[in-house]
């Protein structure tokens, strides 16, 4: 009795890569030969089907849309700035600990306005933060920058605003230490 070959071997036969044994079987077996022929016809039919081409302006619009989504992703992506945020928050706690005891601590409402720039000479909160620099060296390293100031300078406006919120909260909490 003729023993049929496996379907993956018949696929090899349809592709012309079958072993000599499989080829001999297919030549001798009408049922397998028929199935291989059907697969070959199915391949031809499938290959003939195109996908409708989108309108000409579609690809530019598509790329722009992906770019926009990637841009907003970059602004919000926590992986990039969360470690910097954590480092800064830790530094903020340290500021709180180093600051004068309650009673002499400046009220939160009088903190200098936060800005994206780390060079503002009148920004004492930032100056303190930059001076501490590597309060959390591991977190800073995780953020992919050598110094805390370098981490902070890479933040977008939105990230800076989020950081300012965290710092404000931590300083408030630090005042009660």
């Amino acid at each position, binding site marked *: 009795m003729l023993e049929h070959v*496996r*379907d*993956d071997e*018949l*696929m*090899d*036969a*349809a*592709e*012309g890569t079958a072993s000599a044994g499989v*080829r001999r079987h*297919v*030549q001798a077996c009408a049922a397998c*030969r028929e*199935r*291989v*022929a*059907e*697969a*070959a*016809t*199915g*391949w*031809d*039919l*499938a*290959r*003939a*089907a*195109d*996908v*409708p081409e*989108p309108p000409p302006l*579609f*690809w530019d619009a*598509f*790329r722009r*849309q*992906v*770019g926009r*989504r*990637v*841009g907003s*992703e*970059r602004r919000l*992506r926590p992986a990039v700035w969360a470690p910097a945020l954590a480092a800064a928050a830790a530094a903020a706690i340290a500021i709180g600990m180093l600051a004068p005891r309650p009673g002499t601590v400046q009220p939160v409402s009088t903190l200098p306005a936060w800005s994206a720039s780390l060079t503002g000479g009148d920004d004492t909160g930032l100056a303190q933060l930059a001076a501490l620099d590597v309060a959390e060296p591991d977190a800073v390293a995780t953020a992919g920058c050598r110094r805390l100031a370098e981490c902070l300078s890479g933040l977008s406006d939105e990230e800076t605003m989020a950081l300012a919120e965290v710092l404000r909260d931590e300083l408030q909490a630090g005042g009660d230490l």
Partner: protein
Amino acid sequence: MSDLTWTLPVRLAAASGPAAAGRAAGLREDDREALEACRRGDREAFDRLVERYQRDVYRLCYRYLNNHEDASDTAQEVFLKAYRAIGSFRGDSAFSTWLYRIAVNTCLNFRAGRKPVGQELPEAIVDPRPGAQSRVESDERSRRVREAVSRLPEKQRATVILKVYHDLTHEEVAGILGATVGTVKANLFHALGNLRKTLGSKAGE
């Protein structure tokens, strides 16, 4: 009979497009450069990758979802996922193969979450130019084949899309689908037989 005469005539046809070029030599050099630039935060580098592969990804999604709107939305999602995960791409395979894996998973998730709507780009506008009639017939044949492919069981459909339309090797398809090479070949064999039965000997029958 002297030899088998029904082997696939297009099997060895040279694959074209950026994806095919990438597979011939693993990770393409221009992809490698773009990926390194992406990791340094160069957004334009990712834009170049999108431009290079958007057609391949869109077409794969279209084959899966069978309509323009869903294919466009899903293809965008594929690139967004790729951007998020680009740090984890080790370059062991062609970038296109990695993108296809993301695309297949995204399409599967999309299909699982939504009933197919079957909406396609308008194709039936009467065109008086020479050859317009044959183009309409060709479009109709293509539509019938796409519908037949979309009705294949999930694994057979994935195998046909990746192997027949994107010219991947059996090994690459197996890697993307998490199957053995033997399973991929068997699935493809069943799928092609099913298409033949569904469509007749000609898609226009």
